[in-house]
């Protein structure tokens, strides 16, 4: 049987549903030693801001049960250095490149998108309105329906490429945010970003992270992510990119059933950077075994 692994996110066609999540692949060079990027659906860059960001002081990472907390603070090289120094490497690959954009003001989101959209190899934008680890912007936008609507609308106006809004799970009703994104011209949403969490050292009584709180990721958050994907899928007609604790191909299938058109692999890249390529192969085997001709038929195939 000829298995069709390709999926569509709005006008963006991917050869398979496996994307690498922002902040877990840098700008592609390190992970390319372990996984053939050309075999993947897409890669999403580390969040880019207009100017370089230094990020938070250490300690930035701590392990939690079946998960990890991070407070990197959007450390990145900035749009200018990205275009000059990172793009040439990425041009060697035939994989859709999605730029994740983080900003402190609405104007900065617009300016970043406007600057990057001219670059041909960038196929779409993922707008990070939900970083929990920076003081300005980030989650403040992600918790504010009006801000999400305005950012989507303003970014939409400066690019013809697909715009994906990355949603925060740290809200009581995520579908409302997906709806705001859709109504203002977004092509898709990514769900979910990390959950705000913290951890303490019981001897010193200090938080383990210098930033006090961080974003929780890893298998611990998978059930939450699935519920958020399902909520959006049931209530809003917009393609969803499912994210949250995917550790193997079975998790990918689960996210697709719950409503995802594609998925992003994040924390797993830190543990086994060769996993994404293997998962693509295993998805094909699953489809073969289950006589599924098009993997896209799994999307929102839940029976409630």
């Amino acid at each position, binding site marked *: 049987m000829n298995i069709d692994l390709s999926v569509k996110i709005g006008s963006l066609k991917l050869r398979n549903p496996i994307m690498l999540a922002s*902040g877990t692949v840098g700008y592609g060079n390190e992970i390319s030693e372990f996984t053939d990027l050309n075999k993947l659906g897409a890669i999403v860059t580390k969040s880019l801001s207009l100017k370089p960001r230094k*990020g938070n*002081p*250490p300690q*930035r990472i701590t392990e939690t*049960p*079946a998960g990890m907390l991070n407070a*990197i603070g959007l450390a990145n090289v900035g749009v200018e250095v990205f275009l000059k120094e990172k793009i040439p490497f990425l041009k060697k690959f035939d994989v859709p490149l999605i730029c994740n954009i983080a900003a402190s003001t609405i104007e900065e989101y617009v300016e970043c998108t406007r600057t990057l959209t001219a670059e041909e190899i960038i196929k779409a934008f993922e707008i990070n309105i939900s970083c929990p680890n920076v003081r300005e912007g980030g989650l403040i936008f992600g918790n504010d329906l009006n801000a999400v609507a305005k950012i989507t609308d303003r970014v939409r106006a400066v690019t013809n490429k697909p715009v994906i809004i990355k949603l925060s799970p740290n809200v009581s009703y995520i579908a409302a945010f997906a709806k705001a994104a859709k109504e203002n011209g977004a092509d898709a949403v990514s769900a979910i970003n990390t959950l705000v969490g913290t951890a303490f050292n019981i001897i010193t009584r200090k938080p383990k992270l210098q930033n006090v709180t961080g974003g929780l990721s890893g298998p611990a958050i998978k059930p939450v992510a699935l519920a958020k994907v399902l909520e959006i899928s049931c209530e809003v007609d917009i393609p969803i990119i499912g994210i949250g604790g995917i550790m193997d191909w079975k998790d990918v299938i689960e996210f697709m059933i719950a409503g995802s058109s594609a998925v992003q692999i994040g924390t797993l890249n830190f543990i*086994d*950077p060769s996993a994404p390529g293997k998962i693509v192969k295993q998805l094909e085997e699953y489809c073969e075994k289950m006589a599924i001709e098009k993997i896209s038929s799994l999307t929102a195939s839940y029976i409630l």
Partner: protein
Amino acid sequence: MFILNAPVEETIEIDNRIYLLKVNAPEISSVIKPGQFLNIRVSERVSPLLRRPFSVCDVDGEHLYLMFNIMGEGTNILAHKPKGSEIDILGPLGNGFNLDGDYETAVIVAGGLGAAPFPYFTRSLIGKKEIISFIGGRSKDDVITYNLKNVKEATEDGSRGFKGNVVQLLEKDIELLKSKKIKIFACGPTPMLRALKSFCIKNIFECEVSTECAMACGFGICQGCPIESTTEQEKYLLVCKDGPVFNIKDVVI
């Protein structure tokens, strides 16, 4: 860089609750340099989730040795790996020590488990340079001298060797150090490294230091292990990729 499953050959408790894990990993043992590290997944389960970084302690033919004490769940699992079981290794990672250079005597300065990278370091330099090892600890049980040469010991409580910290011991032997063309190689707790940095600047000694930081991936993608640079103000260096070994003058300790 490799990701591979390496069979455990032996786990030895050397002394002072310090473990030595011997694995067979010819792909890595043939290329790894002193001061480089390995990021190890202790089990296939999702908890503990992340890999744990260990410096390579020693290399002998096809074998790698890791030195550790039991700090938590991960090291506890590792200490009890039965012979013949496998561990998942990612490595070699990081830059390692620069053994070349215009010096005649390598001066090792280590505190506690900071001694871990130096058996392989010593093995690699033997016959090429003179080696003096200044090894410190709080008490005699914390002084690790496994496979080190020409050892001078310091304990803060005086239970073994010189009474005081290891940098005070260097001060005491300053005439000896100044009489030789030395380069210092160090690893240990932050207070020791801070004192060592002042000592090296005061006496104009060249020093490479192996640093430590909590990290997830070990090869630069998670950005979890920043270290402040003294040369570039608006940018952090990464312990895993730019280090873990730095010229002590180049980083804020």
